[in-house]
């Protein structure tokens, strides 16, 4: 029998019993939806955790001086960024050089010790906080040496009675006046948290006016951060960076590495291992739902075969082969599986949106959801429909004679 006719018969069978077909598709949809929702929650949870714990560090090379060895090669320099940029080129998304220190600061009240962050480059990958008052630094301001600063939310709250009043007011750092141009909002990630009680300044301004540490030359930084486009390129980028920095600082390969490369990726892998445990748990639950749905669907199909035995025998008396009947029932399962997947993906997306809005559970809705639902639903439908279909195919055509 031609394929088109097989499809016609399968669609006819589905559409002439719409309520039963809807129930069957819903059964598969419920199972597929649970798999898709579990996938969405896991993906959302993973992304959220990664963002909260590591921020941009998850895909960054963080280069600092290797303080465990005393050598003549010194800390990294701001100029190293350019060399790194030239060699790593397309792998790099952003870069920054940081100089850190502590200072005594005073706003419109008492003095407090605060942390100073002198930066040049793209600081917002690490200090990724919204600006609550005032404005952010421009690229030109960061490259310059003006005595301007931005305050972390906690620092602003300590130094000023009303943080909003800090904007435009001077803050005295180690007794030297500096104009506040903006105040950050609350930190939402662990990486940003360190800037909450800090003062952010242009790198050169910090070196020139506020940094009292004597061990760093003007061009030297405590930390270089190179944010990569893809986390997977960290290992390769690290090797390249080590080679470049050794060359720039004249450190031979035979010498111990003069710089340390912060491997946040290792921590990330550890976190992912924990997440994998949760993944297994959630997938176990979702799989049980899928199995329950498949059993329910199989029961429906088996019952349908029993009630349609004479119809099947009549089809066979009209010329259908057992294989035609088998194929027709398998096609029905396939079509209902696709319908179930559509329902499942829709339910998962709807529920995902709901739980995300109501309980702030992170949910990542993406095309893989639909694929997970499609695979689950079709797989369950075809697997559970196989036995009833084979029973239908084995029906005796002689049953057609019996009314």
């Amino acid at each position, binding site marked *: 029998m031609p394929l088109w*006719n097989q499809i016609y018969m399968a669609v*006819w069978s589905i559409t002439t019993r719409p309520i039963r077909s809807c129930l069957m598709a819903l059964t598969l949809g419920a199972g597929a939806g649970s798999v898709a929702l579990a996938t969405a929650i896991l993906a959302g949870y993973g992304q959220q955790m990664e963002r909260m714990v590591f921020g941009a560090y998850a895909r960054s090379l963080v280069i600092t001086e290797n303080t465990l060895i005393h050598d003549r090669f010194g800390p990294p320099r701001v100029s190293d960024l350019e060399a790194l940029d030239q060699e790593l080129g397309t792998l790099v998304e952003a870069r920054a050089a940081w100089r850190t220190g502590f200072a005594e600061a005073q706003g419109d009240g008492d003095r407090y010790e605060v942390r100073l962050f002198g930066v040049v480059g793209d600081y917002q990958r690490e200090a990724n906080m919204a600006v609550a008052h005032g404005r952010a630094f421009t690229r030109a301001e960061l490259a310059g040496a003006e005595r301007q600063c931005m305050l972390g939310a906690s620092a602003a709250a300590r130094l000023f009675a009303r943080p909003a009043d800090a904007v435009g007011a001077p803050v005295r750092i180690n007794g030297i006046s500096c104009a506040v141009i903006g105040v950050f909002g609350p930190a939402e990630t662990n990486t940003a948290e360190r800037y909450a009680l800090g003062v952010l300044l242009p790198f050169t301004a910090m070196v020139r006016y506020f940094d009292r540490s004597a061990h760093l030359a003007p061009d030297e930084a405590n930390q270089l951060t190179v944010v990569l486009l893809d986390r997977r390129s960290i290992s390769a980028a690290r090797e390249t960076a080590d080679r470049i920095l050794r060359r720039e600082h004249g450190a031979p390969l035979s010498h111990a590495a003069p710089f340390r490369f912060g491997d946040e990726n290792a921590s990330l892998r550890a976190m992912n291992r924990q997440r994998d445990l949760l993944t297994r748990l959630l997938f176990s639950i979702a799989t049980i739902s899928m199995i329950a749905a498949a059993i329910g669907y199989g029961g429906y199909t088996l019952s349908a075969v029993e009630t349609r035995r004479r*119809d099947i025998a*009549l089809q066979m008396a009209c*010329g259908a*082969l057992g294989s035609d009947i088998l194929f027709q029932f398998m096609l029905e399962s396939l079509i209902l599986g696709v319908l179930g997947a559509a329902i499942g993906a829709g339910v998962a997306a709807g529920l995902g949106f709901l739980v995300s809005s109501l309980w702030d559970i992170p949910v990542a809705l993406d095309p893989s959801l639909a694929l997970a639902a499609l695979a689950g639903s079709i797989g369950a439908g075809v697997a559970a429909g196989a036995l009833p279909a084979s029973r239908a195919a084995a029906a005796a*055509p002689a049953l057609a*004679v019996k009314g």
Partner: protein
Amino acid sequence: MAGECIAVVGRSGAGKSTFLTILGLLDQPDAGTVSFLGEDVSGIPPAALARRRRGRIGYLFQDAGLIARMRVLDTVCLPMRYAGRAADDRKAAAYKALDAVELSEKANRRVEELSGGERQRVGLARALALGPQLLVCDEPSAALDEQTTGVIGRLLSDHANRGGCVILATHDPLLMPIADRMIRFTNGAAIEEAKP
């Protein structure tokens, strides 16, 4: 047998329906041999049996044997669909068969919306649509009025006159006259009798 109409009679339970089932290649006998168009088909697999009957054998069952939710047109097209006939051919042949049983105006109705007589006529249209060499009818007029029985008798007779073979299990005196020969089932034995 071609061009003949054979009546099969006997008491209930005598084995008429079983005989027709085997004759129509819907089942295999427990013993003995079955020959169809000169070929011994005893013991061949169900799929091979189905291929032999495809397009060659038509059936008219006691209760018409229709699928209740199917449209009349689709019902008549069903054997042609399985025989692999093209859609246009199918439709033309189906309307021709429905014209013959005077039901073409109900082609788009569902079978379950038809009366008993109409269903039996649709069943006959389905059986005749492919022009089968053998038409097997099991008590086709059991629940029909005289007029419908007459229509069915005429169509069966026409089919035999066109060279088809009609085998008919019936007790209906209105259908008996169309039979050329009669086989009576008594105590498990089939006895051929003269023309009724």
